[in-house]
């Protein structure tokens, strides 16, 4: 397949076990069968849904859901055990002294910080998500990606956020992408697998839809928009395209796949817009942390401030909320 690559033997050793899950010809016909996306239509629909006004009680309900569906994230080179501890505390009880604010869905960290998060979240219902497979670029050896996944799961991660190999996807090597997702899914064991498409690097909505179908066919439990390290990150139209792919996939196979929007979501208004698109595309059944997540590092405080604004009727200040 690739005799010039020194890692080829290694790749063969790991991949062939699962590569038979879907043969190349089947994968080809699957990919060819993916219908193309009406770009103008998608943009237009997302823009019109974003205009919907959600106020008062509905807004409070939506904000509460946004907190429950949030993957509170820190993915910095400068992450320390202390920072992860602080984030975990915030994840369990977003607003100290106010038990009416629910815990977030998960804390999302780098693999090396998983153990720190697990130690501080035990006994809570907040889960630990770990990025893996050479996040954020995905440009590493398959064996290393799988080993990283296994290590993260062993360290206690309940959820794995993997990145697809965009280089392979863009050069048309769908088989390689597919095999990798299958292999990582296997390495996850019981852990949930979220597959990051990094839509900002895929170029077109057609590619996004194709990558979504590919990831779901390979066994993804969730498909996720972005790493947050590439601009543009999550956008509403791209999310709409991915949700429609999920809807079509569920119609075909009956297996519900979750959706995670991540990257660049900083305000409550944006978060509510995602919930509106979610509701209109996948329905109320998806409005649960089991099937929808918002990945964000700086969204939580804005949501808390909006909740306080709704409750007190007074515009809030970041000075009175914990630093995130």
């Amino acid at each position, binding site marked *: 397949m690739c005799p010039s690559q020194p890692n080829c033997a290694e790749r063969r050793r790991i991949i062939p076990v699962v590569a038979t899950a879907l043969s190349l010809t089947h994968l080809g016909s699957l990919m060819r069968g993916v219908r193309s996306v009406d770009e103008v239509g998608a943009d237009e629909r997302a823009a019109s849904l974003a205009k919907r006004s959600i106020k008062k009680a509905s807004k409070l309900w939506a904000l509460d859901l946004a907190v429950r569906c949030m993957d509170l994230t820190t993915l910095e080179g400068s992450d320390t055990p202390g920072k992860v501890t602080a984030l975990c505390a915030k994840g369990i009880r977003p607003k100290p002294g106010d038990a009416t604010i629910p815990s977030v869905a998960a804390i999302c960290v780098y693999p090396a910080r998983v153990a720190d998060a697990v130690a501080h979240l035990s006994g809570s219902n907040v889960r630990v998500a770990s990025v893996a497979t050479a996040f954020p670029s995905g440009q590493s050896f398959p064996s290393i990606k799988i080993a990283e996944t296994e290590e993260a799961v062993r360290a206690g991660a309940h959820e794995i956020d993997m990145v697809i190999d965009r280089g392979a996807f863009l050069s048309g090597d769908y088989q390689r992408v597919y095999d990798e997702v299958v292999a990582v899914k296997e390495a996850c064991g019981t852990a949930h697998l979220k597959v990051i498409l990094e839509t900002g690097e895929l170029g077109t909505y057609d590619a996004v839809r194709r990558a979504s179908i590919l990831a779901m066919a390979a066994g993804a439990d969730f498909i996720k928009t972005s790493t947050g390290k590439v601009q543009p990150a999550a956008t509403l139209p791209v999310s709409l395209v991915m949700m429609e792919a999920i809807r079509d996939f569920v119609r075909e196979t009956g297996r519900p796949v979750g959706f995670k929007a991540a990257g660049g979501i900083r305000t409550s208004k944006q978060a509510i817009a995602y919930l509106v698109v979610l509701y209109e595309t996948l329905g109320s059944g998806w409005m649960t942390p089991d099937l929808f997540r918002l990945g964000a590092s700086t969204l939580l405080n804005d949501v808390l401030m909006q909740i306080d604004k709704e409750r007190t*009727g*007074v*515009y*809030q*200040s*970041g*000075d*009175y909320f914990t630093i995130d």
Partner: protein
Amino acid sequence: MDVRKTYKLFVNGEFVRSESGRAYRPDGSVNVPRGSRKDLRDAVRAARTAFPAWAARTAMNRGQILYRAAEMLDSRGAQFIGLLGGGAKARREVDQAVETLVWYAGWTDKLPQIAGTVNPVAGPYFNFTLPEPTGVVGIVAPGEPALAGMVRRLAAALCGGNVVVALAPESRPLPALTLAEVFATSDFPAGVVNVLSGQRRELLPWLAAHMDVNAIDVAGCTLDEVKAAEAAAADNVKRVIKVTADEASPYLITAFMEMKTVWHPIGM
């Protein structure tokens, strides 16, 4: 050709219509945007974002920018005289406004010497006090004098490094809105000065209660409004500045400042 001007709000360095799309006619002829609480919210957010960089500017640089505002105002003197009704009184008011800006421009780097102190303390400490900007300041400008009043309140707040969200006088907003054009061309970073027009009863309660506003200058308020503003301001212990004096004074700058005292060990 007679090109009629659309007056707009000044928020985050941009001239915008009210998000509500509303307008009102203060004097029966010109449409002026009727700002909503959401415009106010946007203005406060812009001001909060602009605050750290503006406070970190050197005093000299802030002085230069205030001086530039004086130059811009002076060069558009005729326009303002027209807006104020013309005549000797209007001319005097514009001159006064220019002088106020120049005067406060000079104070930026002299204030710490006057308001700051070295405190004698019974211990091996070097103890000194310095004025620091309070943060986001809401200003309710007086209707009379419509231009000079606004300039006095704004210049005093900006001089010390505060950022401002100003409500133009409801009945005479045109000089204040036009003054925003002066600030827009004076090198003030976006968000440092924000000017809103509209009905005071729609804006003042939100400004006074806003948790992210650190001080409110009620120079243009009626007694009832002051009382309501004080009650609303209590939630985040907002500084309520009540000055009636219409002359300029360095003590009017310190009204917008907080005093920071530092204890520095010596001889150890």
